């Protein structure tokens, strides 16, 4: 093999560079999200919502638009209107302080808001 030293050094540097986020520096702090003032409890437990809200919203939109089903029965038996704008955002009144903060942290950009209207956009 030619230039063994150079190639190996280059490889080590490259691997080091791309794995830097895993071993170097500190993880950025988990963002503090604005919690609703009135409600203490989301429609499902926080852990479930944190992990599954995207799946849930996807199911909701199919149920509402395609199956003409508009009521969601939570685990605690309470019924809710399946609506991002009219249910979720009635408690989570700030897209900026709730949705965006965590989405930015997680590096995801869902396209809900290209159609759905967040509460604060009009003020």
């Amino acid at each position: 093999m030619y230039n063994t030293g150079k190639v190996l050094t280059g490889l080590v540097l490259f691997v080091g560079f791309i794995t830097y986020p895993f071993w170097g520096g500190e993880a950025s702090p988990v963002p503090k999200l604005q919690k609703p003032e009135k409600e203490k409890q989301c429609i499902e437990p926080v852990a479930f919502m944190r992990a599954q809200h995207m799946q849930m919203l996807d199911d909701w939109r199919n149920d509402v638009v395609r199956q003409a089903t508009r009521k969601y029965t939570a685990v605690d038996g309470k019924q809710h209107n399946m609506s991002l704008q009219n249910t979720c955002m009635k408690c989570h009144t700030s897209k900026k302080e709730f949705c965006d903060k965590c989405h930015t942290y997680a590096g995801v950009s869902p396209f809900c808001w290209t159609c759905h209207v967040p509460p604060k956009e009009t003020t």
Partner: protein
Amino acid sequence: MAIDRRDFLKVAGLTTVIGLTGGGLELLRPGDLDASAPGHEPAAAPGAKQWGMLVDMSRKENWQACIEACHNLHNVPSIDDKKEEIKWIWQAPFQEVFPGSESAYMSDVMKARQFMVLCNHCAEPACVRVCPTKATFKRPEDGIVMMDMHRCIGCRFCMAGCPYGARSFNWREPRLDALTLKGGRKINLEYPTRERGVVEKCTFCAERVDEGKQPACVEATRNGGLVFGDLNDPHSEIRQLLRVKSTIRRKPEVGTNPSIFYVV
């Protein structure tokens, strides 16, 4: 050669015959396969409704108020450019609404009359038949021809397919208009706006109908100009009215079986 020309032609002929008599024709029946997909009931489920509307143009109504009620509720942008305009419900003269039925000796009343036009929520909609993704579909439980904006790919086949010009395409970003509150309009925070690149149209206010309410345009009428009801229920108000009034439908000859009836 393993297969000669005669053999090939024999096989080709045989498969054609099988295709035409067997599975082939089944595929041509619109809606069948759609209905057999999981989560869908057959289109003519027993007890299924077919929402319809009677448009009585002989009544005095503030038709403009009906249009505004709909367009404000659904955040339909008002675009001045005729080529890009988006409309769910609008007004048009007789010869546009009933082409082929106009006469050179039409009464002055008819010539002046602006007819209310909206999606016909056809019993056999051509737009649903042509849509390649089921983004537009017929709700099996009540016959509303619905749009799934999350799924529409913007191919506009439905616009070519609809014989009534009831469909609009979002050529540009439609939110700019809605969000800048043009002409003193307020955005309705309870209803979404749209993205550019999708087709939209009247949904018979599916979101209100599901709550047991009447469509917004019907609610805005004062003198019974619009009557909404179940065409499959012989005792419904709309069926009673259809029994006693002379009504016509738009382009019945194209076989779409529209659910909007007009007293002209």
